[in-house]
């Protein structure tokens, strides 16, 4: 195993750079992103039983030792710059900045990388003067064993400038016996040395000692950086390519987090689940895996909005701990099994095509709060990977009251098809956007609007959530009041039945009253009627009377109407007194008229809603009071003692309180 020198970066800067990846899962995702960029289709993640290490195996194109040195383990060594925006398979690369290898530096002591690739490495050096000798090994930068050099290494020396032409090996330059150094016989001016190394059949095993690296930050000793990475190059036995990366000796705090048990009792949020479950959830959101497609999709309309041509994700990402492998799929709330159906007026299709930024997806509102809470917010995906956690692009700071509360009922997924993927638009770690990016400004304006007012797609969803809430609230108020009024009638009906069944003195009075056919109406009958039926509009929607509905009311937001089941007891004004049914008539009488009158001839009870007592109580209490008073007065037949006794008994009676 030989040391390998890294570029001269201050270790304290390395430490700071590694700090952009947090928590552990966000750092870990870099290994999966690397596998994706290496054209892997299948990635397998295996945790040790005690979470002391984790290994990522992919079936990608692997790395030569030189690619490992120059691209993987070098700050700013991202291959996007020199190899283009696309991988060999034509995938759009995720990585860009070339600091991904540092991601795990704070989470494990050492990173082991095993790989190999059958590719040829070529490089050249332009020398201003003809050197007497030229050492090839330091120029390659990777310590290759002597026995592997002979057949794989070749060089070409040519003059640079006007008299360009190759020098002849043997006559104008020679190799030393080991084949590691060139000797040029005569000064030919500036030359170009081209070195070519065939890596076919070679593999390597390298170690990045993060523990040592971060300790150097304290001493700031650049020279010791030589020993930070070590590499061993050898001939491999099998032709299989791919890369195996093992994060060894995971830090104790990582192990503790992974071992955390699920919180006891009823839990709804991801943050209450076990450490491994949380890891799986977040990894599935920040890696390019396919969408979860449930067998019975509750929201096919949402699935349709996400079915646009975009870059193919990994075929299979599997995480293994113990004996149970878990295949990861990207969870989307509307596509979850058992997720409520998104009503058409709450589903907003997102389509952005402006100044090179193309994005598509959806925003969905729900009538209830979204659980798990981690589903709330809009998730933005660039190149298959979500950028940071779902959020509202700062809209949450602008909103107040009901609008802010409505955010907990909004979820969404926006996939950037082009744009927003340049190096200067994403922060290191791909956790957020650079706000000065023009594309980001367009995206934000389209999604949440501009200025202090939240608009855009999010504004539309919030408006539909609030509208529904207002309609439901208004309807609940109407139904609640009707129910309370009905309850008052039922209370009085049950009280009369109860008192008659008890068979005491009041039972006799009530029985006698209910056998009577006399009318005692005196003036209230001619008072103007009062309407206590259902209103023509509730929450701005038209009310359509219906009957035999399964629920008390049905709201049709698309048709802008509420179907109200008016055949229910709540909308009837019948009062059953033992075995006689009376109709309760509402009158807006004068304050000096009686609170109510009873017409036993026509089976009617008149209630005066203009009575001053109404000012002191709510509708239900007033109705109870008026009915108890009228019944007591009529039954007691001018005996004030009996009247008070009966009225109090009727008023004190509480019907069953179980709804």
């Amino acid at each position, binding site marked *: 195993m030989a040391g390998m020198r890294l570029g001269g970066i201050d270790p304290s800067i390395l430490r700071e750079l590694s700090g952009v990846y947090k928590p552990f899962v966000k750092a870990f995702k870099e290994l999966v992103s690397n596998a994706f960029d290496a054209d892997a289709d299948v990635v397998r993640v295996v945790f040790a039983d005690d979470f002391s290490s984790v290994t990522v195996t992919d079936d990608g194109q692997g790395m030569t030792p030189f690619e490992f040195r120059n691209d993987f383990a070098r700050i700013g060594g991202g291959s996007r710059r020199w190899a283009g925006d696309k991988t060999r398979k034509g995938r759009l690369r995720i990585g860009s900045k070339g600091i991904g290898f540092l991601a795990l530096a704070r989470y494990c002591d050492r990173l082991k990388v095993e790989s190999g690739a059958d590719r040829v490495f070529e490089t050249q050096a332009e020398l201003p003067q003809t050197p007497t000798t030229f050492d090839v090994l330091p120029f390659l930068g990777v310590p290759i064993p002597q026995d592997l050099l002979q057949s794989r290494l070749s060089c070409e020396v040519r003059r640079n400038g006007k008299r360009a032409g190759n020098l002849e090996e043997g006559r104008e330059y020679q190799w030393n016996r080991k084949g590691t150094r060139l000797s040029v016989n005569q000064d030919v001016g500036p030359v170009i040395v081209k070195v070519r190394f065939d890596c076919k059949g070679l593999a390597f095993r390298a170690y990045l000692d993060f523990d040592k690296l971060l300790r150097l930050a304290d001493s700031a000793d650049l020279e010791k950086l030589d020993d930070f990475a070590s590499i061993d190059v050898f001939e491999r036995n099998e032709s299989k390519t791919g890369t195996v990366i093992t994060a060894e000796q995971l830090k104790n705090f990582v192990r503790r987090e992974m071992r955390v048990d699920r919180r006891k009792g009823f839990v709804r949020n991801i943050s209450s689940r076990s450490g491994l479950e949380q890891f799986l959830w977040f990894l599935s959101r920040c890696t390019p895996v396919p969408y979860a497609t449930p067998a019975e999709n509750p929201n096919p309309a949402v699935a349709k909005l996400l079915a646009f041509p975009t870059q193919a994700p990994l075929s299979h990402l599997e995480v293994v701990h113990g004996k149970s492998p878990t295949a990861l799929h990207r969870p989307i709330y509307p596509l979850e099994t058992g997720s409520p159906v998104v009503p058409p007026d709450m589903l907003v299709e997102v389509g952005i095509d402006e100044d090179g930024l193309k994005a598509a997806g959806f925003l969905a509102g729900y009538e209830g709060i979204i659980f798990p809470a981690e589903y709330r917010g809009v998730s933005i995906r660039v190149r298959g990977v979500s950028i940071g956690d779902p959020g509202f692009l700062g809209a949450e700071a602008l909103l107040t009251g009901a609008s802010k509360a409505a955010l907990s009922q909004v979820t969404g997924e926006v996939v950037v098809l082009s744009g927003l993927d340049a190096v200067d638009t994403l922060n290191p770690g791909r956790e957020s956007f650079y706000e000065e990016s023009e594309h980001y400004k367009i995206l934000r304006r389209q999604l949440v609007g501009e200025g202090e007012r939240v608009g855009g797609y999010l504004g539309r969803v919030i408006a539909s959530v609030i509208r529904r809430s207002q309609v439901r609230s208004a309807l609940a108020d109407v139904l609640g009041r009707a129910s309370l009024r009905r309850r008052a009638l039922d209370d009085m009906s049950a009280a009369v039945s109860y008192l008659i069944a008890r068979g005491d003195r009041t039972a006799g009075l009530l029985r006698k009253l209910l056998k009577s056919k006399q009318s005692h109406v005196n003036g209230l009958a001619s008072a103007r009627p009062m309407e206590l039926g259902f209103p023509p509009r509730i929450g701005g929607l038209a009310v359509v009377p219906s009957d035999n509905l399964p629920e008390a009311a049905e709201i049709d937001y698309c048709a802008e109407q509420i179907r109200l089941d008016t055949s229910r007891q709540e909308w009837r004004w019948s009062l059953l007194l033992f075995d006689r049914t009376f109709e309760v008539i509402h009158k807006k009488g004068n304050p000096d008229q009686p609170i109510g009158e009873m017409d036993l001839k026509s089976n009617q009870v008149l209630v005066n809603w203009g009575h001053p007592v109404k000012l002191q109580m709510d509708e239900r209490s007033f109705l109870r009071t008026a009915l108890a008073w009228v019944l007591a007065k009529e039954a007691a037949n001018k005996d004030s003692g009996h009247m008070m006794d009966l009225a109090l008994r009727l008023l004190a009676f509480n*019907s069953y309180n179980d709804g």
Partner: protein
Amino acid sequence: MAKIVTANTLLSKHVTRRDRVLLLNPPVEETRYSWLRWNQPLDLLKIASHLRSHVECSVELLDCMKPDENGTVREDWLPRDRRYYPVKGERYPMRRFGISYGDLTKQLTPMRKEDGGKKKPTQIWISSLCSYWYESVAEVCRIIRQTLPDTQVALLGQYARLMPKTAAEACAADYVISTPPDLSGEPGAFDLYGDRRPPFVALQLNPAVAVAEVRAAVERGVLQFAFFEEDVCREDGGPLLEIFAKTKGLHRHLRYHFICGLHPAKVTPAIAGLLADKQVAAAHFEEAEAGPELDVQAYKKVRAYLRKAGLAEADNRLSGFVWIGRPGDQLERIVLRSFEVLNHLEGLILKPYTPTPGSPGHRQNDTYLASIPHREWSPHFFPFADLNGITHGEYHDLYRMAAFLNEKIRDGSFDFLKGTLGTQMLRESLRREVWKLEPSPLRIID
């Protein structure tokens, strides 16, 4: 006011095969209901069979007392104004057992509209197990009148049978059945419970019917059976023995419960042999009296027969009732009888007394009973406490004493001795000496 009719009149004149009859077992409002799990409307189930076979009309059952999926019957406090029932300075907490009136309304309301009203019952027959459980019957009548105004309501059961005039005045029913039909030969239509089978099946001593009921119940997975009879040993136990013989071996977990009507004086060696069988899950003996005293010889005889039948000395399946709340009660006598019963049986159950309306016991005290509200005829309110001088508080102490004695005698404190002589001696000692424990609020100790 409801019309008072006999069952035969109602069946012959007012029910046709086109009728849809809903049989309803109403909830119960009571201060305590220890025998809740044994509430089963056997009369309704037998009437259902009668209606099917004789009238051929459609019959449904709505049992408000049926246990839920967890085997429990719902209990709720009564609303605030009726939460406590005051009797002579004592406040009795009041509860409603069975489904709530709100849930009952919810079950009845859809019947009005289902299938365009084709499933709406034309008649609802309401039963009551006791004559003093009338409040819930009245409320159920009202709910039916309100939710199904076109449906006729008929009352039957003990309230209608024993107090027909009162029931007709107090409940908004159409008919009050004062004379029930003879249903002794009718099997209970337990299939009305549908998929959710009842936890047990109530039986009467008609061997042909009972055996058929047991066989049918076992096929449906019901293995618990209880006898609803005033005298299960009648005819020297002939019918009982026949039922046992013909159901023996039907299922290894089949169990019988004797919860009433088991009189010690009438137990024969053959009946004792039956009681010793492991198929008997519980046997509660009625109080045996010889004149004014406890018939100790009857208990001794039972014990001897049981011993001969191979039943171990201590067997927690056996208990004995002791009456409390009778007009001539004396506290000392109740306590002594309790100890005496516990000398022969493993459990003591205090049985509060109230006379059945129309019975000799009721006629002897009719003037007194007429002077107190009907609701207070419930044995749990001890209606004769004024006559015998025992206070309500002292009756409650008796309950506590019984619980204490049962706890001491039936618990497993000495089970680690595994039935050795030492265990027996300790138990016997406890049985004899437990009443001497201090302190006690009982007057006999004072």
